[in-house]
């Protein structure tokens, strides 16, 4: 029960929301780069919110299933194919024993997520199934997937999903190659000159090739600090934007270090982190400031949106409804 990895792809790892509670000991949270696509992938299958998935980066894997199950692929458009036929993203798909799923290269975005109805059988380490590449723990043997690996999946009691045909969302979230990223300023905003803050908030930045699971460096105008940007090392939040002495902002992502010694001009708000994680090299971004209250409101709005998605995929589709209508009509004939 499971699947064979025919091709591992560029960087395919098992991820969930990561390992929290150990940051005081220098252990980063890690987890998926794009929490929104991750959440929607599990939602499409009625999986638990934090069920582990495969995160594919830029070039996806090729998998051969050794048992039937249901999968869903979300995130950037990686042009997935099942047995050489294109299959849709953001849709629950039946796969049978012997089927070959080929996740191609990213047409849009940077990562995509494959969720499985039969859960990935990898051990829970320190409360998470995420792969921590630096420490070589979690996920599948603490590393990225390689050609020839075999991943077992656990049998789920439920053999089918209700409302199967309506389990699709038409989302194209990462098509644009420019984005406005909202930030809460600080905590070291005062370390920057007014010229530096003006450059940060009123210019266009370019996504550089220095982009990995730890973070992404931006090219653009010099973001000037008042007296060098070194601080006494302090804790780093997900999405914090450091500006070292070279004046180029670095947005810190899933695998960022827990603490660091560069001043942070601002922090990307949670709902915009997926947009950052899904940028491609040479994409353009701009920053705009909002308050922490506004940012937290956006997060609540997003929760309602997930609920709305759930309602949408839990509706009988038109065909089913029509069958029922037909049945009702038939019934009337005989009453």
């Amino acid at each position, binding site marked *: 029960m499971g699947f064979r990895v025919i091709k591992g792809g560029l960087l395919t790892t098992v991820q969930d929301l990561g390992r929290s509670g150990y*940051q005081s000991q*220098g252990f980063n949270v890690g987890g998926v780069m794009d929490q929104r696509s991750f959440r929607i992938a599990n939602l499409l299958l009625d999986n638990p919110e934090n069920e582990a998935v495969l995160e594919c980066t830029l070039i996806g894997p090729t998998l051969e299933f050794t048992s039937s199950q249901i999968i869903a692929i979300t995130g950037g458009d990686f042009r997935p194919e099942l047995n050489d036929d294109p299959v849709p993203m953001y849709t629950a798909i039946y796969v049978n024993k012997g089927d070959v799923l080929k996740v191609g290269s990213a047409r849009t975005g940077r990562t995509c997520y494959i969720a499985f109805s039969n859960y990935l059988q990898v051990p829970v380490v320190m409360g998470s199934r995420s792969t921590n590449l630096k420490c070589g723990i979690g996920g599948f043997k603490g590393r990225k997937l390689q050609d020839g690996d075999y991943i077992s999946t656990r049998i789920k009691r439920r053999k089918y999903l209700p409302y199967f045909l309506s389990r699709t969302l038409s989302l194209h979230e990462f098509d644009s190659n420019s984005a406005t990223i909202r930030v809460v300023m600080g*905590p070291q905003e005062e370390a920057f000159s007014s010229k530096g803050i003006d450059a940060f908030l009123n210019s266009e930045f370019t996504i550089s090739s220095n982009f990995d699971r730890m973070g992404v460096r931006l090219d653009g105008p010099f973001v000037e600090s008042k007296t060098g940007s070194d601080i006494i*090392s*302090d804790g780093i939040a997900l999405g914090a934007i450091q500006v070292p002495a070279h004046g180029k902002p670095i947005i810190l992502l899933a695998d960022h*270090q827990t603490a660091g010694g560069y001043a942070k001009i601002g*922090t990307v*708000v949670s709902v915009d982190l997926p947009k950052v994680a899904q940028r491609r090299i040479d994409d353009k971004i701009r920053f705009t400031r909002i308050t922490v209250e506004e940012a937290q409101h*956006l997060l609540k709005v997003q929760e309602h949106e997930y609920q709305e998605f759930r309602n949408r995929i839990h509706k009988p589709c038109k065909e089913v409804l029509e069958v029922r209508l037909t049945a009702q009509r038939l019934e009337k004939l005989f009453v």
Partner: protein
Amino acid sequence: MQNLRIVPEGDSSLLIQFEQVISPSVNQRIAAAAKLIKAQQISGITDMIPTYCSLLINYNPLVISYDALYKRVESIVRMESHQEAGQKKIWEIPVLYGGAYGPDLSTIAEHAGLSEEEVIKIHSGTDYLIYMLGFLPGFTYLGGLDEKIHTPRLASPRVRIPAGSVGIGGSQTGIYPMDSPGGWQLMGMTPVKTYDPARETPILVEAGDYIRFVPVSEAEYLDIKAAVDAGTYQVRVRKGED
């Protein structure tokens, strides 16, 4: 509270900035504040990162708002100033100094103009405060290394330093918790695993605790190592007055 500032770091973290200096007293206030906040079991807090002079609190804003957390935390930090300083917790870490276990001990001794025995005596003669952990899981930022044995880092870093290596890098000393590249001068090795992902508590020590290095012989080292591998070794913890 003087010299205290509470600010948001994004929408899911709150930063308490104490006086921005590296000092044991400021650091101890942070350790105490972190313990008190933990004891309150405020729902929504997911993680805390105490560092030299600030405390970052990560939280789930769907459970508690910034405003509500700010109020809770501010009152706790204020209360903390009336707390008595507690006893200090000192982890006794056995170290086999020199030889193949500490290939740079002679360099450190030469740089200091001391004998290797004198370097060991100085290095193992102090309780080092753990200001914070970071860089690697379980990597301790220790304060209190005697200036006499400060030693510059290696000109070209080693590609792989084995877990358990004890070294000096400039004015800092510490233990490598896992195999890692690094540029510190290696003076010895501990058989104790400061980081073990398979253990119930993967990382032994906490910020605010102390570390004391205890010299051991090769025979003792091997005994302890066998006990560590068998899972029967308990690191000695001593309580001391602040």
